């Protein structure tokens, strides 16, 4: 019985964390390139509606997931055109992108409200999935969960170990210097923004295809904003973002289980994920890791290449 509870609670924690992890990892790359895209919520919703619509129409969740990533990237492309080419203000454009995404996804999805879609199948790895307790937790999830963790690993490796990753980071720290060294600032920022959009789209697809397999207007319910906060929480580092996403997801689920067990008002439990996040943030910034908050120096600053 206890083993069963642990399996169920862990599965719920993983579900709650995965959409945050996708969106936050994508935004991390965008911000490391020096671009601040506040349109994560809108891009997630576009991913959610497109992933759902394509899966329902074609019967193929793989096509749905690809379409979700494409839709998120398409909205990000609009953002990139406005802010990187036309030099619009990034904060205002990002906020507009969220509002636009909420509206457009509602319009596109109006015909899909109330339709059922089969949830993504759980992968079954013979042998590993049959292990007691750990098997179903670690090896009984759907493909998107594994993809989200792989994405974190790949992002960490890319930023730290590859030439392109270092170029991207250099551009985020000082676009002027990078430009004077001949690095392609605008092109790199375009690609980073598109990656962020695609990852947010995948987070949305996880919501509408796996977490709660349905489409409803505004179903992200603010997760895009939490993802943005997680990037800061994780001090722009992929594995810390993953830890943050799982901490936030974990406390969200555990507070539901704790309700009724302790005689505290339900509102106190609802505050817990946020309190825990603030507490960890305070501890990190006061401890020996102090000063290692590496916000990209050129974050949100527009760059016009001097000819």
């Amino acid at each position, binding site marked *: 019985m206890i083993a*069963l*509870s642990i399996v*169920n*609670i862990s599965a*719920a924690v993983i*579900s*709650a964390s995965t*959409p945050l992890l996708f969106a936050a990892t994508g935004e991390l790359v965008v911000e490391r390139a020096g671009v601040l895209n506040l349109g994560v919520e809108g891009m997630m919703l576009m991913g959610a509606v497109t992933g759902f619509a394509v899966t329902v129409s074609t019967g193929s969740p793989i096509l749905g997931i690809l379409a979700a990533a494409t839709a998120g990237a398409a909205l990000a492309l609009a953002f990139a055109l406005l802010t990187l080419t036309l030099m619009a203000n990034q904060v205002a454009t990002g906020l507009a992108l969220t509002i636009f995404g909420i509206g457009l996804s*509602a319009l596109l*999805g*109006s015909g899909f*409200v*109330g*339709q*059922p879609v089969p*949830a993504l199948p759980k992968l079954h790895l013979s042998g590993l999935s049959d292990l007691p307790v750990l098997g179903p937790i670690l090896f009984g999830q759907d493909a998107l969960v594994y993809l989200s963790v792989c994405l974190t690993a790949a992002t960490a490796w890319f930023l730290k170990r590859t030439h392109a990753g270092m170029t991207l980071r250099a551009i985020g720290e000082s676009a002027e210097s990078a430009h004077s060294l001949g690095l392609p600032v605008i092109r790199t920022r375009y690609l980073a923004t598109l990656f962020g959009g695609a990852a947010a789209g995948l987070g949305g697809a996880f*919501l509408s295809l796996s*977490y*709660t*397999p*349905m489409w*409803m*207007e*505004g*179903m992200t*319910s*603010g*997760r895009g904003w939490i993802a943005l906060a997680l990037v800061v929480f994780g001090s722009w580092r992929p594995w810390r973002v993953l830890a943050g996403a799982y901490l936030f997801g974990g406390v*969200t*689920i555990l507070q*539901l*289980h704790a*309700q*009724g067990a302790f005689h505290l008002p*339900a*509102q106190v*439990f*609802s505050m817990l994920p946020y309190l825990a996040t603030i507490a960890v943030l305070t501890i990190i910034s006061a401890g020996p890791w102090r000063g290692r908050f590496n916000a990209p120096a050129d974050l949100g600053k527009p760059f016009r290449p001097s000819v």
Partner: protein
Amino acid sequence: MTFTVTRRTFLASSAAAAGTLALGRPGRALAADALPIAFVYTGPIGDMGYTYAHDVGRKAVEAHYGDKVKVTFVENVPEGPDCERVIRQLATSGNQLIFATSFGFMESTLKVAGQFPKIKFEHATGFKRAPNLAIYNARFYEGRAVLGDIAGQMSKAGVAGYVASFPIPEVVMGINAFTLAAQKHNPNFKTKVIWANTWYDPGKESDAAKALIDKGCDIIAQHTDSAAPLQVAESRGVYAFGQATDMTSYAPKAHLTAVVDLWANYYIDRVKKVMEGTWTNSDIWWGFKEGLVGLAPFNPAMPAPVKASAEKLKADITSGAVHPFTGPIKNQKGEVVYAAGQKASDEDMLKMNWYVAGVES
């Protein structure tokens, strides 16, 4: 088209002139023309829940009156300063009857109603009236009592899980009515409540439902607006009830029935009263009897005796033979709140802030 625009402009300017043009009998004056009506919603009409149900009522008004009415609606209006602007805009653009359908619109509706004394306003689920502001509400707890009656018979564990939004009287009343009705069949029946602290967050609602099932609940009720808890019930093989509309399509096996909000008859009646000039600033709280609250079709998996029992309870509440809050009723501490045979008054129910014995919250 041009005519409409001209007339709207005319009405807007006359309304802005604050009665210098006599609009004394708007119903009569507009009888030959379309009566302009407006609805203000807090959610999206595609929420499949509360706002969707109001919008079904709006469509029924259009279907019933055809081109005798000209209906406008505004969705996704936040409950705050913005709603005042929206309501005032609808008033200045010539609408003669404005329905503000959410609790949080109360103060703004009251304020705008004071500024437009010739226009009729209606506010749902609130408690502030004015000479040109009527209020209306539905006795959802009657439906929830029938859900409890079903749960008391369908639950093997005798424990229901309740995904709740906020501990306001409306929700507390529903939890209590549900639990009391279930205890008529199983005196030890318990209702475990998890507060999602949101009206609408599919992910969180689904997590709450999962947690309840993990805690041993084998039937799920909800007072939040998305179908996510039903989907969880479907995948975990337990029964559940929908919210505000028939949600069978999301969970064909799990969905037993749902309390359905039926605003259509009320809206049609109110429009008629404005047309006839008999509109008053009434204060109604209607339920099964008046057809404002209904039930979605029962799941064929429900055994015949359970169906019969649910239908009988509905009929008895409709006729007034049964009141869901009839003593003896004890609170969580075991103190008697209503003695045997005593019924809760409307006033008591509208400020209910305590749980009956058997609720674990």
